[in-house]
């Protein structure tokens, strides 16, 4: 049997349109990126819970230099989630990039893969 990877639940959730986070069954601490055990209490019992999908931009970058694997310049951002974790994402409306800007996750197909991208609250759709 192939070993189940610790992060499979996250990407399976993305494929269903859900943004999930690991939550410790023993102490309720949430963690991202996924780990086999809770760093706070050491328990290996956990459940996947939905996140609100809200966040704010802590920092953002424009990758200017074209590279073979990442030819489209992307606006990559570090997002602080109200639940108390951070996630790296890409901004769908880079013209509105600003530190502290409110964003919402939109599960979007990019380069043939569904990914948790973000759009600013003022970015409309």
């Amino acid at each position, binding site marked *: 049997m192939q070993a189940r*990877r610790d*992060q499979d639940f996250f*990407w399976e959730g*993305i494929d269903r349109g859900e943004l999930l986070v690991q939550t410790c069954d023993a102490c309720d601490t949430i963690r*991202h*990126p996924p780990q086999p055990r809770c*760093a706070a209490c050491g328990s290996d019992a956990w459940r996947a819970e939905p996140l609100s999908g809200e966040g704010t931009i*802590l*920092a*953002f*970058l*424009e*990758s*200017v*230099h074209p*590279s*073979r*694997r*990442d030819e489209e310049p*992307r*606006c*990559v951002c*570090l997002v602080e989630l109200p639940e108390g*974790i*951070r*996630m*790296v*994402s*890409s901004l769908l409306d880079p013209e509105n990039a600003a*530190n502290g800007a409110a964003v919402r996750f939109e599960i979007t197909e990019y*380069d*043939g*893969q569904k*990914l*948790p*991208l973000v759009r600013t609250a003022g970015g409309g759709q």
Partner: protein
Amino acid sequence: MSALTKIAEGQTAITGIGQTAYTKESGRTVMSLCAEASMKAIEDAGLERGDIDGLISFTMDTNSDHDLQSAIGLPLVRWTAKAPFGGEGAYATFQLAAAAIESGQASNVLIFRAFNERSEARFGQPNFNPKAMPRDYHRSLGLVTPGQVYAMWHKPFLDARGMTSEDLGLLVVQMRAWAANNPDAWFYGRPITLEDHQRSRWIVKPVLRLYDFCQETDGGVAFVVSRLDQARAQGQNSGRPVVRVLGAQQAWPLGESMMYNYYKPNLTYAEDTEVVAKALWEQTGLSPAEIDVSTIYDNFSPSIPISYEGYGLCKRGEVRDAIRAGELGPGGSTPVNTNGGLIGEAYLHGLNNAAECVRQMRGTSANQIEDAKIALCAGRQCGMVLARE
């Protein structure tokens, strides 16, 4: 949690350093570079190959201990180790070598590092094919190259200090001024102005321009670490100063990460570096004010201000003022990377900076700091203090 222990008791010395030319196309195998640097280090230490019984590098070095042993003909190796991570683990090799020597596990440890990282396996190139790999929290979202990966956590620090690309430019000008006077440096004879820096092209906007990156280097560097009493006896014979390892430390607080350092509680200072620094001052009984010269691991220019504050070379929040006052460059009060650093001299993943610390303690640097007696060899998650005696 137990208190930090004194891992290095200061009973070791760096007796030998060796390096190849630093080029962009060596035209030789990596092992031949590694072997040349190693033989030079052994010769510099005044030792024979048979005196070397320990070998260590850190991860991402492609030269195996066994191959190096064969290449230079070491009769018997009885201790080996690998320090963790890439460059952030560079000075952990000295901590481990000191522990091996002080515990009697080895007599003379050879530390080595060599690459053809420009002409062969280029370091820092994107090597991610999104269609061939499972989705990833970083690469799939656009953080592929080291420049992209590091810039994302440099940015909150720079924002908190009010630092811009111009401030990084003022810093790089100081590093390049050192390099311009170091014949071994790639940028020897090629100082730059702030305007030059600001004209260099953006790679990761608004943090890293081309001149904020370290070199891609073909080359090798090696060290011999020995017992202090042996080094002293040799020093008395040769008249050369003894370069003592006063302290060496690693620190990995939970949540800090070498590359994807986005999840620790506070993104505006380096807790890992502050723990390394505190341990070094406890081990050595010194304070930052007593450091005569430093090298700081500078794979990218923002690494310097982050570590400069982390080691207490200024108060937290004051590094921008120190850079603007030129304190890190020639004539400054806290000379940093007098070889030109990884940005100006070469990128041997931090070990060429350690070699510069040894030269400063011997009085043989191209940019010698007068009467330098204490050197800080600083990385973000490891560091060491050397003393001349």
